[in-house]
C-alpha cells in the first residue's frame, strides 16, 4: 500500500523509514510550498488554522503522487487539531477521492482502537508485532537524532563566521541521516553530523541575544509555516531555543515524561489546561524569563484559540517578569518581508534593553 503522512519539520525522514520497514511504499509529500498552501486554502474552511490548510494541501499533493492511505494523529481537544482527521476525510470525500485517513488516537483513550489500527497496517504485509516494536524503536531513535541535530544547528548558527554556512551543513546532515538505515548507522550518523556542525568556523566571542520560541506545535516545527524564523533569527545573531521538539512532544503524549515543571511555572497565571500548547506557551515563557533569556517569540496560526487565550496572559508575564514577548499570528497572507521587519525591530529593542541593563550594572 502507498502510505503518506503529515509533513512537519524534519520528521518525514523518520516516518519514511518506518513505513518502508513495515512493508509499505512511503509517499513523502513534497516540502510544503506556495502550491501546497494554494491547494489547501482552496478547499479548507476560511477560518481553519494554517496547519489545517497546509496539511490538506500536502495530502492532495501526496494523493497526486499515488498515496492510498494517510496516517495522522488525533487528539482530545479542545484544540481543533484533534478534529482535523474527520474533516479532512469529509473534504477529500466531497472532492471525489477515496483515500482513507487513519487517525491514531491516544492509546489511553481506546487501546483496542489503537492496536486495531496498527494491526490493519502491519497485517497485510505480514510484519509481526515484535518486528513492529523493533522498527518503531528504530524510527524513534532516528527522530531523536534529527531533533538533536536541528537543536545543535540552532546553537551554532548565531556564531557562524560565514553567513549561511550552518544551513548548508545542516541540509547535508539531513541527507546523511536519511541514508542511515540500521540502528548502528543511525548512531554513527549522529556522531558524524555532530562533528560536521561543530566544525563550522565560529566566532565564540560574539555576544548573542537569547530568544525562546513558544507557541502552537505545527507552526513552531515547520519552517515553511513560520518562514524559517529560527534561521532568520540565527543569522541576525540571535540564539534561539525552541520549547517544542517532536520527539519530546511524542514522549510526553505517550506517557513517558510529564510537563509538570512547565505547568507548575504557568500555575500562578492559569491552572486549567485549555487545549493545544496554550498553557505550555505561558509556562515556558516564565521559565525562559527565569533562565535569563532576552525575549520570547510566540508563534501561532491565525485564529488559533489556545494561543489567543495565552496572549493576554503572556502580557501579564511580561509585566511580572520583565521579559518582552512578540506574538506573531501566521496565515496564508503572511509575507516574509513583513515578518523580517518585525523581527529586526524586536531584536533591536532587545539589544538596546540588554546594553542599558549592562550600563546600569557597571
Amino acid at each position: 500500500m502507498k502510505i503518506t503522512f503529515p509533513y512537519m519539520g524534519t520528521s518525514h525522514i523518520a516516518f519514511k523509514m518506518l513505513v518502508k520497514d513495515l512493508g509499505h511504499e512511503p509517499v513523502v509529500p513534497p516540502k510544503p510550498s506556495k502550491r501546497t498552501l494554494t491547494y489547501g486554502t482552496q478547499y479548507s474552511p476560511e477560518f481553519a488554522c494554517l496547519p489545517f490548510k497546509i496539511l490538506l494541501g500536502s495530502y492532495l499533493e501526496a494523493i497526486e503522487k499515488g498515496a492510498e492511505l494517510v496516517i495522522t494523529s488525533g487528539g482530545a481537544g479542545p484544540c481543533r487539531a484533534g478534529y482535523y482527521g474527520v474533516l479532512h476525510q469529509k473534504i477529500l470525500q466531497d472532492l471525489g477521492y477515496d483515500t482513507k485517513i487513519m487517525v491514531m488516537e491516544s492509546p489511553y483513550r481506546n487501546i483496542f482502537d489503537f492496536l486495531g489500527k496498527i494491526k490493519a497496517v502491519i497485517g497485510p504485509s505480514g510484519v509481526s508485532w515484535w518486528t513492529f516494536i523493533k522498527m518503531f524503536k528504530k524510527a524513534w531513535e532516528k527522530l531523536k537524532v534529527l531533533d538533536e541535530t536541528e537543536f545543535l544547528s540552532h546553537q551554532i548558527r548565531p556564531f557562524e563566521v560565514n553567513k549561511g554556512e550552518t544551513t548548508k551543513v545542516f541540509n547535508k546532515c539531513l541527507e546523511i541521516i536519511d541514508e542511515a538505515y540500521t540502528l548502528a548507522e543511525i548512531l554513527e550518523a549522529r556522531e558524524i553530523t555532530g562533528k560536521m556542525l561543530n566544525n563550522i568556523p565560529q566566532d565564540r566571542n560574539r555576544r548573542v541575544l537569547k530568544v525562546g520560541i513558544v507557541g502552537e506545535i505545527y507552526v513552531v516545527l515547520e519552517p515553511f509555516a513560520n518562514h524559517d524564523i529560527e534561521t532568520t533569527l540565527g543569522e541576525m545573531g540571535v540564539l534561539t531555543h525552541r520549547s517544542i521538539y517532536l520527539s519530546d512532544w511524542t514522549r510526553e503524549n505517550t506517557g513517558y515524561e510529564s510537563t509538570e515543571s512547565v505547568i507548575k511555572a504557568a500555575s500562578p497565571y492559569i491552572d486549567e489546561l485549555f487545549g493545544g500548547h496554550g498553557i505550555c506557551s505561558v509556562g515556558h515563557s516564565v521559565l525562559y524569563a527565569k533562565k535569563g533569556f532576552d525575549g520570547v517569540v510566540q508563534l501561532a496560526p491565525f485564529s488559533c484559540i489556545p494561543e489567543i487565550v495565552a496572549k493576554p496572559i503572556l502580557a501579564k508575564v511580561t509585566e511580572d517578569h520583565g521579559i518582552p514577548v512578540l506574538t506573531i499570528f501566521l496565515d496564508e497572507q503572511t509575507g516574509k518581508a513583513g515578518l523580517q521587519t518585525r523581527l529586526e525591530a524586536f531584536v533591536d529593542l532587545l539589544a538596546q534593553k540588554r546594553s542599558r541593563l549592562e550600563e546600569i550594572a557597571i
Partner: protein
Amino acid sequence: MSIKIGIPRALAYYAYFPFWKEFFQELGLEVIVSQATTKQILDNGVKESVTDACVPIKLFHGHVYDLKDKVDYIFVPRIVSVNKEKTVTFCPKFLGLPNMIKSSMTGLPPLLDTRIDLKKGKGELFKVCYRLGRKFHATLFTIIKAYLRGRKAQARYQRLLNKQYTPVEALNLMEGKETPSFDSKQELIFAVLGFPYTVYDKFVNVDIINKLRKLGIKVLTAEMVPPKILLQQAKKVPKNLFWNFGNQVVRAALYYLDNFKVDGIIHVTAFGCGPDAMVDKMIELEAKQRGKVPFMSVTIDEHTGEAGLMTRLEAFVDMLVLRRGLS
C-alpha cells in the same frame, strides 16, 4: 443593603441564565444583568481585549466593563463541561475566560470564577452551588432550596424553548413580559444555527431573526430542539466535536436536515471563531450530501453592516422562493 452579583449578558448567559438568576436571588443576593449590547459596550470590549479574540469574547469584556462599577461581584464561571459526555468540553476561550479577563482588565470587583465541571457525576452542580452559597454564608437549607428553585426555573425555560420560543423571548416571558406574535402564513422554514451568543445578540448580528421573520420566514434555532433529541443525533457523526455549543449546532443541523425538512440553513458565525470553522464546513457538507439543502454562512464581526446583511438575506430568500415556485 444586599450584595450585588453582576452577570454579563454574553456567552453562556443565553443558555444558563435562569438557573443562576433564581439561585442567587434565593440566596438573598441581588442579580444585576449588564444592559443589552450597545455600540458603547462593543467599543469598550474592543478596547479592553486582545485584538485576536473573536467578537463574542470582545463583547464579554464589554459587558464586564459595563458591570464593573455597578456590582460587588462579577460572575465569570469557568465552564468546563455541562453534561456527562466525557469528550465534550467548551471552547478554550471559555476555559481560560476568568484568566483572560483578569489579565487584560483592571479595576474590577472580585470575580466569582467558579469552576463548573459536571462530567464527574450527578451531584457536581450541587457541589458548585454549595461552595458558592458558603461564600455568602448561606445555610445548607437555603442553598438546597435555592438550588432546587434554580433547577425548576431552568426546566421551565427549557419547556418554553421546546415550544419554539427563542431564548430572548423565553426570558421575557419568564419575567412576565409580552412577546410579539408573528402571522402564521409563513411558508418557508429556515434553520438559523450558530452559538447562542451570536444568534441571539441582536445588536451584533443586526437582528437577523426578526429580519427573516419580516421576510415571511419561520425561524428555527438549535435551542428549539429538545436536548434528548439532540443527543440522539450524536451517532450520525464519526467523532464528537470537543465543544458543547459546536455539538449542539451540528446535531441540530442534522435533526433539521433529516427529520424536519427545512427549506434552508443559515449558519451565523463570528469572524475568526475557531470551533465554527469546523462546524461550518461540517454543516455545509452534510447539507450538500442530503439533497442539496441551500446553505448560507453569515460571518459577523464588530463592523457588520445592516444593509450588507439585508441584501444577502433577501437574495437568499428570493432564490428559495423562486426555487419553490412560491409567490
